[in-house]
């Protein structure tokens, strides 16, 4: 494993300097070396099913507009007007055939082309090369099982190679039943006063904290807890690409403790095992992170989220609830309710984490 600049990380000995969670210079370098190079999660295709559907998100700190054009193709552009750099679309989501900048009125089609410029004839003398000033697309965009990713790096490896063997682990969340998944409800966005790496690493592999940080919720029966029938199996799996998943034993259950959900999960289990193949007989992935900042959970809650960096000690969470697309409506609703009660800005479990992460990341300047 590599040494970080100035020896801040010694992964082989399990040592990390606390400077990487607070220092502005390191954070700025992360924007260039990590967020401008890695494949980053944008959205699930079920969030933008119709022509004109769009969402706004970000890649690192760069605002991005993800929109399905009139031809049905999904595009991702910098959400920035090419005239003076103003934020183009201010809405979180919606449906639009065009986007008009609030500053001077330049308008773009949902395919990114510049379609209208005020005073084009009298002020620009029709000399503006409109074809040159469409929205800036990301360098590469691709999807895996409905999960849309993009990168600013034109030389980045293909998405499926970037994910590698972790695709099977993703299938445990997003392709375990015919029809895949869909997002229900909207997005929860909120800020936590900690570095983006804290929640990202926690989802990827910190099952150490669960029975301590969340003990009160587990004791009152809000979470999946530990089933008396649990084998205590499972392990932490990870790849050299920095992705990782927490797993439990193949027959262990950590589904949301709601009768409708437990009954549904038991019903679909044969199909799930058939689709996922022999590896599912060895383990059951329930929480994970795709490097650098896309995480998912299907124990207690069904949520995926992006940990958007907003400064060295600030992360914006964008969290969604997902369900099997072909699940009965009452199961979808039970999953949605259980998910927001446990994870989300008002979620019992999430509040436990939101208390610890800022305190763990903050450190006095003289002690790093």
């Amino acid at each position: 494993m590599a040494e970080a600049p100035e020896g801040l990380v010694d992964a082989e000995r399990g040592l990390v300097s606390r400077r990487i969670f607070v220092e502005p210079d390191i954070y700025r370098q992360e924007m260039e070396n990590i967020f401008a190079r890695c494949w980053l999660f944008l959205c699930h295709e079920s969030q933008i099913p119709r022509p004109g559907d769009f969402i706004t998100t970000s890649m690192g700190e760069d605002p991005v507009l993800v929109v399905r054009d009139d031809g049905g193709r999904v595009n991702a552009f910098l959400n920035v007007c090419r005239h003076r750099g103003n934020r183009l679309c201010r809405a979180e989501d919606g449906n639009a055939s065009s986007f008009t900048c609030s500053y001077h009125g330049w308008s773009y089609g949902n395919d990114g082309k510049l379609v209208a410029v005020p005073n084009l004839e009298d002020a620009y003398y029709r000399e503006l090369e409109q074809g040159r000033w469409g929205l800036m697309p990301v360098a590469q965009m691709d999807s895996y099982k409905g999960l849309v990713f993009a990168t600013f790096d034109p030389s980045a490896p293909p998405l499926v190679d970037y994910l590698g063997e972790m695709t099977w682990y993703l299938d445990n969340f997003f392709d375990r039943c015919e029809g895949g998944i869909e997002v229900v409800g909207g997005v929860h966005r909120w800020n936590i006063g900690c570095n983006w790496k804290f929640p990202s690493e926690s989802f990827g592999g910190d099952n150490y904290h669960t029975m301590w940080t969340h003990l009160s919720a587990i004791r009152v029966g809000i979470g999946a807890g530990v089933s008396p029938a649990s084998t205590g199996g499972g392990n932490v799996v990870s790849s050299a690409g920095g992705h990782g998943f927490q797993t439990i034993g193949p027959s262990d259950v950590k589904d949301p403790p709601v009768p409708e959900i437990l009954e549904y999960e038991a019903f679909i289990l044969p199909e799930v095992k058939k689709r996922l193949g022999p590896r599912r007989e060895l383990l059951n992935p329930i929480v994970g992170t795709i490097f650098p900042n896309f995480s998912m959970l299907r124990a207690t809650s069904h949520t995926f989220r992006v940990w958007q960096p907003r400064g060295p000690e600030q992360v914006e969470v964008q969290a969604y609830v997902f369900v099997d697309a072909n699940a009965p409506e009452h199961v979808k609703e039970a999953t949605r309710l259980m998910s927001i009660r446990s994870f989300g800005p008002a979620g019992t479990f999430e509040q436990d984490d939101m208390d610890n992460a800022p305190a763990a990341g903050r450190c006095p300047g003289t002690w790093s």
Partner: protein
Amino acid sequence: MQMGLGHESFDEDLMAYASDFRISESFHRRFYGRWAELMAGRPSRI
């Protein structure tokens, strides 16, 4: 991040590094190892 250090290996059946026990900081080391590679300007890893 030293929990489970030395008690992990690449598992051919799982096609991933796997901790011997279900509680481990094995992933943390992989996560920050990758972070360090990228911060050092190493090429994209497949």
